């Protein structure tokens, strides 16, 4: 191994701390994107907003597990999957979909703060 294991662990710990500091704003961005879906005036606007939410959820799903947040990663992955399905439907999210989106964003918030 090229570098001392302890040094690497310390660097990883520092990266995790930096990531954790950014979690609040990242979840805030999810919540804003969710609000944009509700605020959009038409189907096209809502679908675009769902696309934005998908992109944000994907980033969290992709990275959170590596930084010690597996439950957050799983919730964000579910959110990403739901956004993907809604996007493929090409229609305004149903009330059931909207409820699920809200619940998953709330779950992301809860896991990030746990």
């Amino acid at each position: 191994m090229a570098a001392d294991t302890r040094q690497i662990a310390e660097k990883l710990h520092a990266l995790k701390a930096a990531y954790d500091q950014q979690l609040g704003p990242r979840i805030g961005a999810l919540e804003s994107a969710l609000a944009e879906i509700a605020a959009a005036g038409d189907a096209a606007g809502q679908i675009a907003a769902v696309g934005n939410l998908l992109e944000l959820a994907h980033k969290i799903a992709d990275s959170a597990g590596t930084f010690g947040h597996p439950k957050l990663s799983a919730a964000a992955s579910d959110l990403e999957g739901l956004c993907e399905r809604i996007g493929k439907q090409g229609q305004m999210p149903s009330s059931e979909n909207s409820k699920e989106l809200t619940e998953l964003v709330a779950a992301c918030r809860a896991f990030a703060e746990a």
Partner: protein
Amino acid sequence: MVPGLTKILCVEDEQDIQIVAKLALESVGNFTVHMCSSGNDALAELPGFGPDIILLDVMMPGMDGPDTFKAIRKLEGYENIPIIFMTAKVMANDRENYRALGAAGIIAKPFDPMTLSDQIREIWVEYHGR
């Protein structure tokens, strides 16, 4: 005989993952690593860097992993370079799809930074043993 593995091109759009992967591959694996943030960057920088193997994120904005894979395969001299997909989506059918495309291996996200290099070496050895 399995050739030496020293240079890895890592294509990953998420900056947080880039930083961890670079640390893991350089400090733990002692590899020479070049990071790219997109498929287009990878295509542009691949010939200059000349990697032994490519680590490729599946989901990226714009050109995604599979599209980048196909574009790399069309580059002269890189028709057979081993490419590993990195993805959070590791359902059985996804694995089959990536294998069918010609991937040398699949590494699941989240990855363990301390064992990522070993995973890549195992895939490298397996690839050259085929």
